[in-house]
């Protein structure tokens, strides 16, 4: 017996958004990083619910496995009191940021809700097997794939050069 999809959606939404807020508001930066990892896992759950299990796996491997671990190492390398020193600006600025973000999110959500009747309420039948991903990735877009590979190695070398300590 499986869980009804609507309950899954509500739980995933709650976990993802609460963890995202915690990532920004947690007192200690290291807890913020762990909250960020939880939020990424929530997004991976959304990917599973949208028939994209391969992307969910990639999301967990790359975001939770690499990006968050990299962030944790950086937090440890930066002196503790410096990393935790917070941070939020003056109250007026904080309120302005809240207004900006709220207005933006509400207007996008409002537009989506207005367009709602024209958008599909249920996903069309059929699914997206992982085997479709490969031909499109390497067949339809081979040049971006190669550029991405070069860019990735270039960025990693650049990061290495930047972080190197000159003796």
């Amino acid at each position, binding site marked *: 017996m499986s869980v009804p999809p609507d309950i899954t959606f509500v739980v995933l939404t709650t976990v993802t958004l609460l963890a995202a807020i915690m990532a920004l508001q947690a007192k200690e930066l290291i807890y913020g990083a762990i909250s*960020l990892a939880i939020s990424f896992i929530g997004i991976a759950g959304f990917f599973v619910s949208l028939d994209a299990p391969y992307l969910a796996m990639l999301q967990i491997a790359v975001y939770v496995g690499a990006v968050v671990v990299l*962030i944790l190492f950086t937090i440890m390398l*930066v002196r503790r009191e410096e990393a935790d020193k917070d941070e*939020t600006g003056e109250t007026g600025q904080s309120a302005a940021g809240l207004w900006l973000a709220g207005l933006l999110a509400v207007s996008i959500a409002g537009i989506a809700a207005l367009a709602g009747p024209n958008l599909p309420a249920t996903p069309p039948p059929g699914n997206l097997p992982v085997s479709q991903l490969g031909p499109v990735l390497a067949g339809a877009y081979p040049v971006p794939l190669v550029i*991405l590979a070069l860019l990735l190695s270039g960025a990693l070398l650049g*990061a290495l050069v*930047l972080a190197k300590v000159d003796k």
Partner: protein
Amino acid sequence: MPSLVSYIIVSAALLGIGIYGLSVKRNAIRILFAVELIVNAANLNFVAFARYMNPPNVTGQVIVFYSIAAAAMEAAVGLALILVAFRLNSTIDVRKLNKLKG
């Protein structure tokens, strides 16, 4: 199964949280968190639209594949820059990193 609009609303909320962090926070690592949240909001939209197209289209997932790789290298370079900034200025408060201010 929830409608496409509910996915868009979740994505908009995630974007709002990210924009808030980007505009208010002063700690460079925290700002990087906010950027990652915004990228994730975009990815969620791509995957949702790809699934709800008729017939379902895999191209949205391919774009997210590229986006995840790009976000990984953005994080690597960003964290290296933060380390360098900390080494040179012994602070990662972005309001204090203002040597280029005229």
